[in-house]
C-alpha cells in the first residue's frame, strides 16, 4: 500500500478532464442539441467520452511509468468548515485508473452503439426530439462515474455515487411516459423512481458510515482514513465493524445485492445501451469498487468481511435461480448481472480483491456485449415486426405508439390476432434468429460462453479465480458460487436455445433484420475483449498482471495458480448445465404458446422463479404499503384532522370563541372569518346569548355591577 503523493504535473494534470470532457460534451449537446443532426450529437458525445478514455489511458500510463505511485491531483477546495476539510482531489493509482479505463472504454463503445440504437428507438417511439437528451444523460453519467472512481476521498466517491444514481434514474425513466412496450403507462417512471429510492436507502448506509468515519477516524480522505483505522480497530473495533457494515448497505444498494437488488430488474425499462453501460458494466460495479478501495479497513474486521462474502454469495445464487424462470431477454440478463455482482462482492468480501476486480472487468466486457446484442435482437425483432406490419398494411404508417390505448389495442388486434401488444423482448416471441441475424448471433454466443465460464473465454478465468479463493478460504461460499455458476450456464443455454435456435415463433422473428454496422462494430470490439479478456490476469506464474498492477494500490495480493480441480469442476458443471438446457429447450424447440418445459417438473419452485420469489410483493406488503398507510394516516388523521382541525381550529380557536361568545347569527355570511367559529354551532349560540345577557341594557344592572365592584373591593380591604 502506498500513500499518495500530491502531484500536478505531466499527464496527471489532465485528471480533471476525466470529468470535464463529458461535461463539456453534455453542455454542447444541451445547448446545440436541437440544431445538431443526430450524427453530430452522437459524435460529440462519443468524442467526449472518448476523450475521457484517452485521459484514462494517459493516466494509467503515468501510473505504470511511475511504478504504481499513487498520486493525488488537487483540483479545488470543496467544503472547509470546522474540522471538516473536503477537497475535490483526483486520485490516480492503479485501482482508480483500472476503473477509469473500464468505464470510459466500455462507455465509449456504448456511446457509439447508442448512436445506431437510439436512432431507431426514438423513431419506434415517435419521439425523435429526445435523441440528444439521451446523449446528454449518457455523458452526465460518464462524468458522475468518473467522479466516483477518481475521487480521493469517500465523500467525492459519494458525490459520484449519488450522481450515477441520478443518471440511472434519468435513463431508466428515459421513456417516462410509457412502459417497455411503449404503452402509455407509469411503469417506466415507477422503475426509475424505485431505482433512485432504493439507491438512496443504500446511500443512507454510506452516509452513516461516513459520519462514523469522520468522527472516529477524523477524515474522509482515503489515506488518512486507512492510516487511522488500525489504531481504532484496536481500541474500538465496533467502530470499524459499523463503518464497514453500513458501507455494505451502500454496496447492496448500488451493486444490487440482497436485500436491495430489487431495483435492477426493473431498471431494464431503460434503453438497452443504458442497461449495458449502467446496469451491467459500470455503475453497478461501484459497490465492488468501494469495497476494494476500502480494502485496508475491511481487512481489519474479518467478521464484516464474512458478512460481505455471504451477502455476495447469497445474491449470486438467489438471483441465478430467478434468472432461470424469466422470459424477457433483458430480465434474464438483469438477474444474471445481479448474480455476477454477487460473485464479485463475494470475492472482495473474501479479500480476493484482484479476483473481484478481474471479474468486474471481464464481466463489463461480456455483459455489455450480451446486453447490447440483446438490444440488437430486440431492435431486429422490432424491425421485423414493423416490416411485416408494413407489408400487410402497406397503406398504413408504422404503428403509432403514442395513440390512445383503445386505438392501439385495436391496431394490434387487427394484425396480431390477439389482444397482447407485441413484446419484442419476450423470448417466447423469438426463435430461430440465428439465421436472420447471424452477426448478432455469433456475438451473443461469445458473450454467453464467456458468462457461462467456458474455457478460454474471459469469464472462465475470472470466475475460476473467485471460486478458487472461495474454496481455499470460505467453503460455504464456494459451494454457493458453484451452484450459481451451474445455474448461470443453464439459463444462458436456455436463452440461446430459445432465442436463436428452433423456428421462429412469430412473424416478427421470422422477418427479423440484422442491425447496422454502427451497432455491430462496437459489439465486435467487446466480443474480442470477451474472448481475450482473460489474458489480463492469467493464473500462471509470471502472469497475474492485473493482480500485480493492483498490488500497487492494495498491497500484497495472493497470486493463486490455476487449480485444475476447481476449473475442472466448474467447467463440467457448466457443460452439464448447457447439456440439460439443450435437452429441455434445444432438442425440442419451444412452440408458439407452449408453456415452459421446466414448469411441469419443478412446479411451484418454477412459479417462484418466474415470480422472482415474490420478493417485490413482500416488500410491498412489508414496507411500501405500510409506509403509504402510515404516511396517509399521519397526514390525514394526525396532522390534519387532529392537529390542524381539532386542536387548532376546534380546541384553540373554539375555546377562544366560546369564551368570547361570538354571535354566530350575525356572521353566517362571513364564512372566512368564522371558519373559526362555525363548528361550535348551537352550543356557542347558547353560551353567547347567556353571556351577552349581562350587558342587557338595563341601567339598574349596570349600577349593580358598580355596586358589586364596590362590595368586592371593600370586602377585600376589610377582610384582608
Amino acid at each position, binding site marked *: 500500500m502506498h500513500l499518495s503523493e500530491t502531484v500536478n504535473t505531466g499527464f496527471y494534470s489532465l485528471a480533471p478532464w476525466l470529468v470535464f470532457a463529458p461535461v463539456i460534451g453534455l453542455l454542447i449537446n444541451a445547448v446545440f442539441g436541437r440544431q445538431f443532426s443526430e450524427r453530430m450529437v452522437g459524435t460529440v458525445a462519443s468524442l467526449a467520452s472518448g476523450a475521457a478514455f484517452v485521459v484514462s489511458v494517459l493516466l494509467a500510463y503515468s501510473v505504470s511509468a511511475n511504478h504504481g505511485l499513487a498520486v493525488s491531483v488537487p483540483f479545488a477546495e470543496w467544503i472547509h468548515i470546522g474540522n471538516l476539510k473536503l477537497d475535490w482531489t483526483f486520485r490516480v493509482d492503479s485501482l482508480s485508473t483500472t476503473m477509469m479505463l473500464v468505464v470510459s472504454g466500455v462507455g465509449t463503445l456504448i456511446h457509439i452503439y447508442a448512436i445506431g440504437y437510439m436512432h431507431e428507438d426514438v423513431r419506434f417511439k415517435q419521439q425523435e426530439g429526445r435523441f440528444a437528451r439521451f446523449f446528454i444523460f449518457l455523458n452526465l453519467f460518464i462524468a458522475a462515474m468518473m467522479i466516483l472512481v477518481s475521487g480521493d476521498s469517500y465523500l467525492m466517491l459519494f458525490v459520484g455515487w449519488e450522481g450515477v444514481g441520478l443518471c440511472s434514474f434519468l435513463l431508466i425513466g428515459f421513456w417516462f411516459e410509457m412502459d417497455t412496450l411503449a404503452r402509455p403507462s407509469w411503469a417506466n417512471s415507477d422503475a426509475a423512481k424505485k431505482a433512485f429510492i432504493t439507491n438512496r436507502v443504500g446511500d443512507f448506509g454510506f452516509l452513516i458510515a461516513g459520519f462514523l468515519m469522520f468522527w472516529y477516524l477524523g477524515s474522509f480522505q482515503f489515506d488518512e482514513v486507512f492510516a487511522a483505522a488500525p489504531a481504532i480497530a484496536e481500541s474500538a473495533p465496533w467502530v470499524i465493524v459499523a463503518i464497514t457494515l453500513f458501507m455494505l448497505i451502500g454496496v447492496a444498494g448500488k451493486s444490487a445485492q440482497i436485500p436491495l437488488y430489487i431495483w435492477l430488474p426493473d431498471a431494464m425499462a431503460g434503453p438497452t445501451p443504458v442497461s449495458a453501460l449502467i446496469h451491467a458494466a459500470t455503475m453497478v460495479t461501484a459497490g465492488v469498487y468501494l469495497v476494494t478501495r476500502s480494502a485496508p479497513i475491511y481487512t481489519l474486521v474479518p467478521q464484516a468481511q464474512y458478512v460481505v462474502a455471504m451477502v455476495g454469495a447469497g445474491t449470486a445464487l438467489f438471483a441465478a435461480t430467478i434468472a432461470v424462470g424469466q422470459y424477457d431477454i433483458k430480465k434474464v440478463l438483469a438477474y444474471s448481472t445481479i448474480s455476477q455482482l454477487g460473485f464479485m462482492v463475494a470475492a472482495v468480501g473474501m479479500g480476493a480483491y484482484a479476483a473481484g476486480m478481474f471479474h468486474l472487468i471481464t464481466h463489463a466486457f461480456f455483459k455489455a456485449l450480451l446486453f447490447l446484442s440483446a438490444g440488437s435482437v430486440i431492435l431486429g425483432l422490432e424491425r421485423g415486426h414493423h416490416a411485416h406490419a408494413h407489408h400487410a398494411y402497406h397503406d398504413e404508417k408504422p404503428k403509432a405508439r403514442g395513440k390512445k390505448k383503445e386505438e392501439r389495442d385495436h391496431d394490434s388486434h387487427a394484425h396480431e390476432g390477439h389482444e397482447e401488444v407485441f413484446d419484442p423482448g419476450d423470448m417466447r416471441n423469438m426463435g430461430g434468429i440465428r439465421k436472420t441475424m447471424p452477426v448478432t448471433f455469433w456475438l451473443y454466443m461469445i458473450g454467453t460462453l464467456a458468462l457461462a465460464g467456458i474455457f478460454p473465454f474471459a469469464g472462465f478465468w475470472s470466475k475460476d479465480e473467485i471460486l478458487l479463493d472461495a474454496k481455499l478460504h470460505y467453503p460455504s461460499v464456494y459451494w454457493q458460487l458453484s451452484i450459481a455458476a451451474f445455474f448461470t450456464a443453464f439459463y444462458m443455454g436456455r436463452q440461446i436455445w430459445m432465442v436463436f435456435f428452433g423456428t421462429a415463433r412469430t412473424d416478427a422473428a421470422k422477418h427479423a433484420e440484422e442491425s447496422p454496422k454502427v451497432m455491430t462494430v462496437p459489439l465486435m470490439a467487446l466480443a474480442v475483449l470477451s474472448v481475450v479478456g482473460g489474458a489480463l490476469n492469467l493464473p500462471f506464474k509470471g502472469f497475474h498482471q492485473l493482480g500485480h498492477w493492483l498490488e500497487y494500490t492494495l498491497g500484497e495480493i495472493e497470486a493463486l495458480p490455476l487449480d485444475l480441480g476447481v476449473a475442472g469442476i466448474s467447467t463440467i458443471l457448466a457443460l452439464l448445465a448447457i447439456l440439460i438446457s439443450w435437452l429441455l429447450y434445444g432438442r425440442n424447440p419451444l412452440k408458439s404458446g407452449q408453456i415452459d418445459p421446466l414448469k411441469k417438473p419443478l412446479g411451484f419452485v418454477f412459479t417462484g422463479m418466474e415470480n422472482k420469489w415474490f420478493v417485490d410483493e413482500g416488500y410491498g406488503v412489508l414496507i411500501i404499503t405500510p409506509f403509504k398507510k402510515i404516511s396517509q394516516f399521519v397526514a390525514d388523521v394526525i396532522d390534519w384532522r387532529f392537529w390542524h382541525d381539532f386542536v387548532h381550529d376546534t380546541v384553540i380557536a373554539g375555546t377562544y370563541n366560546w369564551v368570547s361568545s361570538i354571535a354566530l347569527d350575525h356572521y353566517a355570511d362571513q364564512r372566512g372569518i368564522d371558519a373559526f367559529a362555525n363548528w361550535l354551532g348551537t352550543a356557542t349560540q347558547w353560551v353567547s346569548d347567556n353571556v*351577552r345577557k349581562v*350587558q*342587557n*341594557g*338595563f*341601567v*339598574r344592572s349596570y*349600577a*349593580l355591577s358598580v*355596586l358589586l365592584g364596590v362590595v368586592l373591593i371593600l370586602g377585600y380591604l376589610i377582610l384582608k
Partner: protein
Amino acid sequence: MVPVDYYIALSAILFIIGALGVLVRRNPLIVFMSIELMLNAANLAFVAFASVYETFSGQIFVFFVIAVAAAEVAVGLALIVEIFKSRKNINVDDLNSLKG
C-alpha cells in the same frame, strides 16, 4: 352630645339605602332621588366630621355638593323630560335598546 360614630353610622345607612334605591327603583326620578340621598349621606358625614375636626372645610364641601347636585338635577331632569316626551314613559327598564 351624640357621638360622631352615630352620625357616621346613620350616613352609611342612608348611603346604602340610596345605593339600593338606585338598584331597585324603576322610575328615573326616584332613582335620581336615591342618588341625591347618597350625596346627602355624604353631606351628613362631612358635617359630622367637620364638627369633630372643628374646621370649616368639611362644611364648605357640603355647599359645593349641594350646588353641584342642583346642577345635576337641572341636567338630569331635562334629560328625563326629553325621554318622557319621546317615549311617553319614564321606566328606566325601557331604556334598553342599547345592549349586548
